[in-house]
């Protein structure tokens, strides 16, 4: 038997992702022997430190899991608590929560599309370099991102770790007139988002598709943010309270984040591609049209094209934010009354990176006895590793540095948030 050469591809510190991680790929000949998304970001033990805290503290404490998507943590936490206490927040308060989520999607997606992902397609190290050659593109990005942050700031007080979200609603509600200036900015942002879709549709995409098991929320009428059933393209259709009966978390040695798998299927995929492919019919007509113009079918299986899908979701978020603002009438009370009881509550909402699951067991005073949090990135880790396993063999002839960069890009397709996953990424390619 001839001895085939082995080789490794290593990236010690994966750049342009949130948090710390690396990548290690081992090849023998043109066979991939091992792919590890290494998460070395230190664990922070949120589920443990939540024990003994009051239910009302969960939205602010869990927000600190991630500075990029704090709203998602606040939303999943408040929904889980309200589920436990048997109350439902509806009407304008519910609409304002959707509006807050629109702000986070615009801000987080714009950050990823222009500052973390686009430089890969265009061969730049970062957005600052990109700005030297394309100042107008980067200015548009910054102003678009700022508009998302302005929504979160108006409703939440500040863009990172907003302070106005509480179980039952908000602490203080904005008046209609406070939204006037924001609505004008959002109209500009919607046009900027449409230009963003056109811009990213012109980027070069590798010919790479996979048959993913997509998992996302699905709501009878809306593109999902806060509510819905968990569905997949493999026939899954469950209430969120059955999440743990269908998905399990595994602890692997190379990662400080737990890996999540769908029972009987293994790896699955959450996030913009899944959300879009399972809910295309729920997008606004403008967002659907933008997707079609960009050449996207109602189902997208090319992870590199997630940059287009994110841009389409920015269009949707601007559109939806404007709709909510136009119909806004300030409710009399900022929150509904909460009466704690001993119970277990479930929350699952669509963070920018995909479904974020929370479960809390509470005592009769509302103290947290047990907490469980499953962020989107830990659900996607296996899929990211499998993507690389299939992607790398097609590009082995590339020079080392180019191959490493392609691998990094393949990871960044998923906008991994390592801070979330450890409640991380280095790329190593091993060719022996």
């Amino acid at each position: 038997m001839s001895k085939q050469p082995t080789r490794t591809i290593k990236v010690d510190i994966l750049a342009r992702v949130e948090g710390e991680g690396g990548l290690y790929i081992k090849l023998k000949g043109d066979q991939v022997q091992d792919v590890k998304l290494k998460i070395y970001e230190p664990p922070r033990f949120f589920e443990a430190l939540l024990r003994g805290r009051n239910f009302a503290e969960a939205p602010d404490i869990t927000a600190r899991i991630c500075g990029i998507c704090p709203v998602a943590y606040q939303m999943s936490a408040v929904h889980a608590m309200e589920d436990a206490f048997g109350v439902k927040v509806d009407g304008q308060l519910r609409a304002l929560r959707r509006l807050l989520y629109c702000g986070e999607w615009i801000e987080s997606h714009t950050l990823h599309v222009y500052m973390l992902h686009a430089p890969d397609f265009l061969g730049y190290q970062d957005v600052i370099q990109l700005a030297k050659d394309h100042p107008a593109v980067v200015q548009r990005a910054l102003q678009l991102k700022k508009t998302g942050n302005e929504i979160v700031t108006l409703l939440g007080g500040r863009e990172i770790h907003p302070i106005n979200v509480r179980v039952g609603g908000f602490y203080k509600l904005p008046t209609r007139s406070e939204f006037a200036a924001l609505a004008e900015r959002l109209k500009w942002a919607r046009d900027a988002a449409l230009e963003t879709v056109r811009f990213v549709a012109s980027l070069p995409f590798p010919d790479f598709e996979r048959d993913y098991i997509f998992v996302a929320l699905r709501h009878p009428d809306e593109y999902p943010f806060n509510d819905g059933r968990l569905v997949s393209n493999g026939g899954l259709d469950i209430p969120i309270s059955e999440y743990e009966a269908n998905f399990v978390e595994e602890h692997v040695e190379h990662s400080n984040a737990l890996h999540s798998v769908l029972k009987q299927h293994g790896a699955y995929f959450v996030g913009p591609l899944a959300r879009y492919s399972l809910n295309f019919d729920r997008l606004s007509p403008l967002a659907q049209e933008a997707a079609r113009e960009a050449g996207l079918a109602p189902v997208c299986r090319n992870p590199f094209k997630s940059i287009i899908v994110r841009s389409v979701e920015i269009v949707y978020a601007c559109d939806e934010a404007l709709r909510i603002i136009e119909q806004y009438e300030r409710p009399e009370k900022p929150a509904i009354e909460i009466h704690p009881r001993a119970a277990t509550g479930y929350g699952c909402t669509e963070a920018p990176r995909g479904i974020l699951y929370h479960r809390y067991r509470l005592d009769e005073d509302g103290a947290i006895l047990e907490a469980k949090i499953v962020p989107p990135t830990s659900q996607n880790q296996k899929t990211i590793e499998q993507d690389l396993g299939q992607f790398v063999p097609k590009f082995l002839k590339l020079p080392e540095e180019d191959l490493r960069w392609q691998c990094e890009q393949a990871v960044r397709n998923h906008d991994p948030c390592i801070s979330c996953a450890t409640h991380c990424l280095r790329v190593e390619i091993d060719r022996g």
Partner: protein
Amino acid sequence: MSSKVRRKPRIAVFKFASCDGCQLSLLDAEDELLSVAGALDIAYFPEASRAMGKGPYDIGLVEGSVTTHHDAERIQEVRRQCKTLITIGACATAGGIQALRNWKDVDEFIRIVYATPRFINTLKLSTPIAEHVPVDFELRGCPINKHQLIELITATLAGRKPNVPTYSVCLECKRKGNVCIAVSLGVACLGPVTQAGCGALCPSFDRGCYGCYGPMESPNAESISNQFRVLGQNNAEITRAFRSFNAWAWQFRKASEESERT
């Protein structure tokens, strides 16, 4: 004057145990980012760039607390590489929310979260950067205020003292013309013992301050604890109030331990 072109000061951003929110504040400074990039050479900032320039650096921004043996060694090297070392945020400055482990058995924490505890390597305490190396300036907040960050970078480049006040949140409320919610609504508010910087956000939203900027320069924690008791809070609630994002800051630590003993 010499015709030699002046070298741009080099800045680096390092992450320890944290949520990434404070370094994101730099990218959230949408109106200032390109000017900052014009004035400085952003040499090492992995969250934003693949180009990772080697030290030494003129300014190092450190986010996050020290929670592993590896990080305890890494911060020594970071200090050696940085002329001016600035910590950004409550994790780097006070140990962060993850410092709640400091009152618990960390091995039990590992067992609660992870199925195979032997894979996990962590220290018993989550500690601020200044417990490991000398720090030139500590910027408070969970998260930091991006305008304070820009002011701090500008002041450092100009070689002057940054305008970052150490008085309490109460002064910001007065300046904004807020009616005191502790007095008018009877809300438990940590504003009197908490350093300004947020712009009195929570009180402006009819909510008590929860102390995310940490202790002000001379906090009377005993008095605020008594006030909380008058408002009907029990010792467990007072302990929790001091034990959040700046729990390991010594004034808050002392206050929480006193209410826990009472």
